[in-house]
């Protein structure tokens, strides 16, 4: 016997020396026994440092370790350690080898280490070491050793793997038990974090075994380690099939669990038709039913099309009435998935689940026995039932509905009852049901009293001690805030939520508070909430900043009541979180001032510099009167940030500087100095270099007049149809807008070309069209405009559609909407010219004309931009807002044309008293154009555009070209491209304009040449054009020759706007 019983007693607190000597004695004995060398440990153990803690923790640690060793006895024959109080017995073969009083954490750890080494099970060491390091406070030495033991562990594992591999490959056939053992070992090694690449076949073989445990381990290995597309899966499926058909329910269950665990498509194909039988079969055991329900659910989720609907589907909802609560619990999950796909087929489950729910919530906690969880009756089933009901609207049947309402009230009542247990499990389970009930209440959104009660209950949770509850209350309240019934009730908690935002320690809870503030925000509290959010933004966690900024911006825009507040908010946003920069309106002087202040801060975001550069450059003069923001201060302030900025920002700043030269001649020299510095003039960045040199020569050589022209202040921003403007507009009477629009129209008209020359006259018959519902169609036919002049303009005003947002109009679809007059202006400009082409040898004639329509409605500005759209296009949307869409479609035959104006009603309610009026402001125009309005709508006629391409060869073309080269017949323009210079697009546009395109005529293939005819009643006007793009300069040169003087000019002007 190698191990004679040894007994050490380490007197607990006595003194360190005693400890040490006792230990040495113990070590010495072990060494003497010669099992292994203790040198390593002796080094580690600086005995002098051993201190007595005597803490319960130490004892606990050793207990844990020892317990582990004990548990593991089966895996390895091991010296057994038993703890009794503070004693450790080391036992080998039931003989007490050592008995040590452990009073010290570190010491007990070492002893255990010794034991582990002793048994020679190196693979366990690192596990234990991990545990030890976790436990030990002064564990540096131990963790230093971990590297080594990790290697040891690896070595050990590799050895074991090699062993198992050889066993599997060996000549000797392994029996079931051995196979199970090795498969189990492989799993263990896998779970320790190693990759396993063999043993799969052996695991599958285990499935053939008749022994339950062997089968079980086989299935476990498969569900943990075999992926669903492994080639062994077919074998597995065969086994599954056998087991499913087995008469032994435990085997059936194993198969079902395996299918549920893997649930591949192939399995769905193979087993989905079989499993429903198990589910509704009368004699199947309860556990089989449970597994079958969830197994089928898994397959249904994987491949719903594979699960055949049939007889069983009508029976499945009756499982809700099953005696066995476990069966109901499993079945509800399946039913919910089926319902989600096909709610109508399973409608019957509503009343069934309500009655089941009623039985649960009214039962006392003893009724349901083991299904009561910490005094809460069947919380899992209740929650699942409440979830199921959220797939349906509130029940129509009053008895059922009342029953459900009673259930929900009971749940709400229980929430305020004193708790039956102080355990957190009780409150969690109870509140889980409560939160699910509240979700259902919100989902139904029909019972105001329940909603308000839910809200007040959640309000109480907001100040609960449990972080989890506060989190969930904030989350649920977000949903409540969206219901009209409870929105106000939620708003009452604003203060608490703000406090949560400020004081919660957990960022995820603060995040919920932000969400809730966002959800509860409306016009009445917007300023306050946005203010709080901004304050919070200063300290907010980086992870939620982005979202927070977005929320603030949206709220500020949505509920802005005055510009100052909005700009303040947006500028604050930029200052605090510059990654977000709004492109919205800047409020000029106010912005300049604020931006100046913001730039004064020692550190500011680059985007702030950009904004600052732009604003000061444009409007710096507005604040220059103030000595604190004198011109040179402004410049210095901007330039102070210059060297910190990226090249694009620097380039922007250079532009700002040259603007400052214009605004403040007194700082011209300073700026010239900056521009001519090598850092700019010779910068490697081309953009900076070019700007510097251009601005330098501009600053040096130009007179103040030139500067002032080049650097003229930006015109007021064109109003855009942004959401904020749309919101603002709602508040203003539409009439006011309409008036404004009309005024602008008046100015615009002369610009689009004066009409001169004779025109054919035609009667005007306009009948206002009225309509409701879908839309009103208005046809305009402008007939027979004849012109021997270059261009005509027809301005038409279609008055009176676009409803103003009359809030008093009653509910949707109800009363008629009061239409305030808002104006739709339609300006039709037709330019007609005759062409000289008919005489061409080809005989082809080209005809062209243009109709230009401009419209304005309900306060939007429809300027040249809109009617210019129709120079090259025959149809499109003329105008669109929230209520109305106006589309235009034109077609032209010879010199007559038809313009159809469509009005589309975008609201759900019909537009009543809809009228359209054609307004011809100028009587001379009336004379020029014949206008007929069809009874269904209004018809307006004008001269027309039809394109007939003129084919001609180079010689013919240039012959005509030369014939038409008298000064008054030629018009040439050089202009900047207004759109990207893309040949294909340009081609489309020219064709749309009415010109034909002639290829192989110009020596430069990049140039466009072509011909067209403008047809009018009085005759046709031929014209030729040549367009020469210059890609580098982004410029075009356009030359038009036409038989009639003036036509060339007008064509030139029109084309210029398009390309």
């Amino acid at each position: 016997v190698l191990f004679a019983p040894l007994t050490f007693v380490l007197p607990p607190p006595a003194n360190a020396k005693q400890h040490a000597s006792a230990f040495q004695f113990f070590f010495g004995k072990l060494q003497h026994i010669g099992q292994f060398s203790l040198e390593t440990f002796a080094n580690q153990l600086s005995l002098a440092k051993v201190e007595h803690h005597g803490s319960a923790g130490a004892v606990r640690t050793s207990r844990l370790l020892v317990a582990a060793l004990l548990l593991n006895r089966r895996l390895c024959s091991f010296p057994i350690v038993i703890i009794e109080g503070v004693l450790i017995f080391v036992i080998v073969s039931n003989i007490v080898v050592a008995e040590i009083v452990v009073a010290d954490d570190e010491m007990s750890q070492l002893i255990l280490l010794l034991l582990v080494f002793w048994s020679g099970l190196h693979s366990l060491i690192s596990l234990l070491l991990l545990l030890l390091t976790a436990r030990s406070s002064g564990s540096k030495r131990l963790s230093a050793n971990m590297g080594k033991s990790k290697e040891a562990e690896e070595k050990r594992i590799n050895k074991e793997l090699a062993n198992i591999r050889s066993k599997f490959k060996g000549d000797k056939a392994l029996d079931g038990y051995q196979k199970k053992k090795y498969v189990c070992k492989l799993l263990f090694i896998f779970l320790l974090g190693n990759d396993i690449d063999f043993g799969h076949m052996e695991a599958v073989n285990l499935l053939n075994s008749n022994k339950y445990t062997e089968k079980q381990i086989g299935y476990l290995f498969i569900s943990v380690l075999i992926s669903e597309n492994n080639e062994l899966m077919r074998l597995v499926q065969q086994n599954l099939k056998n087991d499913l058909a087995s008469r032994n329910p435990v085997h059936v269950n194993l198969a079902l669990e395996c299918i549920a665990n893997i649930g591949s498509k192939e399995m769905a194909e193979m087993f989905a038709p079989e499993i429903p039988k198990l589910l509704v079969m009368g004699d199947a055991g309860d556990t089989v039913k449970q597994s079958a329900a969830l197994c089928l659910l898994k397959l249904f989720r994987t491949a719903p099309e594979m699960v055949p609907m049939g007889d069983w589907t009508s029976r499945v909802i009756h499982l809700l009435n099953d005696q066995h609560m476990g069966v109901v619990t499993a079945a509800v999950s399946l039913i919910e998935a089926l319902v989600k796909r096909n709610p109508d087929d399973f409608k019957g489950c509503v009343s069934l689940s309500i009655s089941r729910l009623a039985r649960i919530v009214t039962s006392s906690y003893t009724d349901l026995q083991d299904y009561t969880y910490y005094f809460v009756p069947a919380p899992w089933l209740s929650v699942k039932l409440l979830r199921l009901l959220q797939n349906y609207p509130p029940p129509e049947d009053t008895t059922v509905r009342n029953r459900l309402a009673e259930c929900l009230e009971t749940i709400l009542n229980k929430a305020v009852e004193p708790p039956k247990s102080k355990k957190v499990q009780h409150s969690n389970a109870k509140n889980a049901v409560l939160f699910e009930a509240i979700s259902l209440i919100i989902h139904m959104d029909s019972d105001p009293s329940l909603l308000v009660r839910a809200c007040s209950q959640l309000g109480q949770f907001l100040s609960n001690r449990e972080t989890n509850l506060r989190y969930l209350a904030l989350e649920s309240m977000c949903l409540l805030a969206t219901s009209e019934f409870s929105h106000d009730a939620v708003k009452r908690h604003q203060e608490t939520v703000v406090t949560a935002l400020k004081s919660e320690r957990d960022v995820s809870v603060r995040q919920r508070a932000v969400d809730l503030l966002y959800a509860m925000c409306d016009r009445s509290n917007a300023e306050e909430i946005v203010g709080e959010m901004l304050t919070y933004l200063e300290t907010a966690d980086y992870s939620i900043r982005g979202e927070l900024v977005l929320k603030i911006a949206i709220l500020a825009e949505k509920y802005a009541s005055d510009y100052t507040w909005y700009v303040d908010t947006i500028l604050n946003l930029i200052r605090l979180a510059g990654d977000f920069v709004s492109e919205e309106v800047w409020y000029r002087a106010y912005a300049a001032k604020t931006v100046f202040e913001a730039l004064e801060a020692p550190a500011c975001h680059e985007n702030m510099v950009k904004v600052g550069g732009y604003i000061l450059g444009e409007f710096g003069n507005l604040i220059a009167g103030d000595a604190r923001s004198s011109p040179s201060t402004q410049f210095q302030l901007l330039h102070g940030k210059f060297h910190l900025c990226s090249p694009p920002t620097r380039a922007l700043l250079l532009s700002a500087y040259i603007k400052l030269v214009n605004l403040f001649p007194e700082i011209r020299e300073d700026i010239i100095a900056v521009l001519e510095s090598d850092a700019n003039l010779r910068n490697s960045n081309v953009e900076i270099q070019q700007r510097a040199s251009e601005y330098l020569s501009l600053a040096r050589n130009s007179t103040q007049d030139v500067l002032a022209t080049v650097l003229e202040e930006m015109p007021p921003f064109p109003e855009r149809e942004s959401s904020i403007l749309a919101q603002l507009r709602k508040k203003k009477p539409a009439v006011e807008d309409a008036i404004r629009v009309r005024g602008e129209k008046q100015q615009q008209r002369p610009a689009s070309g004066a009409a001169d020359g004779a025109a054919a006259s035609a009667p005007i018959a306009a009948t206002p069209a009225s309509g409701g519902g879908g839309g009103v169609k208005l046809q305009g036919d402008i007939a027979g405009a004849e012109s021997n002049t270059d261009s005509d303009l027809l301005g038409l005003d279609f008055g009176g559609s676009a409803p103003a947002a009359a809030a008093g109009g009653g509910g949707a679809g109800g009363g008629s909407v009061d239409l305030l007059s808002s104006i739709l202006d339609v300006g039709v400009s037709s330019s007609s010219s005759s062409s000289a082409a008919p005489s061409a040898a080809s005989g082809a004639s080209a005809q062209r004309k243009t109709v230009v329509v401009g419209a304005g409605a309900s306060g939007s500005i429809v300027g040249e931009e809109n009617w210019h759209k129709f120079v090259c296009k025959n149809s499109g949307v003329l105008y669109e807002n929230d209520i109305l869409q106006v589309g235009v479609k034109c077609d032209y035959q010879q010199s007559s044309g038809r313009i159809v104006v469509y009005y589309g009603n975008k609201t759900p309610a019909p537009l009543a008293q809809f009228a359209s009026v054609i307004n011809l402001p100028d009587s001379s125009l009336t004379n020029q154009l014949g206008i007929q309005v069809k009874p269904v709508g209004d018809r307006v006629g004008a001269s027309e555009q039809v394109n007939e391409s003129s084919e001609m060869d180079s010689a013919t073309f240039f012959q005509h070209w030369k014939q038409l080269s008298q000064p008054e017949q030629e018009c040439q323009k050089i202009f900047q491209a207004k759109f990207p210079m893309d040949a294909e697009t340009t081609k489309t546009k020219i064709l749309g304009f009415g010109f034909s395109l002639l290829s192989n005529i110009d020596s430069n293939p990049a140039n466009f040449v072509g011909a067209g005819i403008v047809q009018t009643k009085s005759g046709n006007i031929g014209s030729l054009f040549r367009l020469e793009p210059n890609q580098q300069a982004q410029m075009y040169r356009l030359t038009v020759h036409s038989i009639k003087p003036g036509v060339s000019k007008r064509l030139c002007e029109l084309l210029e706007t398009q390309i």
Partner: protein
Amino acid sequence: MIHFMLLFSRQGKLRLQKWYISQTDKAKKKITRDLVTLILARKPKMCSFLEWKELKIVYKRYASLYFCCAIEQQDNELLCLEVIHRYVELLDKYFGSVCELDIIFNFEKAYFMLDEFILGGEVQETSKKNVLKAIAAQDLLQEDNNEPKSVLEDLGLANIASALSS
């Protein structure tokens, strides 16, 4: 539906993993790594729920072991917390004061128990008695009954190492 359940130690070592949705091994490893880092960084008093991608993470610490579940948006977080607790109770009842090492060395039992309790990501049987009865029935089927179910119980030491925090 529960997407997966992970058990890992305070040192970040994965002790048990159960996936209810199919994932590649690589994805599993990444998800595990991400979540372990995320959760270990959280302080004790913080809330047990986390938003993570499209999912909600519910976790709870028992002694040195973290239990972590990923559930879907519409699932009930509080109840998931109790799913975890019920599982711990089951383990505790079966092993008698369960500790981390029980799960390491008796992983197969931990898996079998989980399969009885949760199947396909949904709670199957909430009764503690029924689950334990099923496991006991399995143990009875073990051919070599000479293997003790739990050494600790053999030795009458069921109360040691109480790893369960109340």
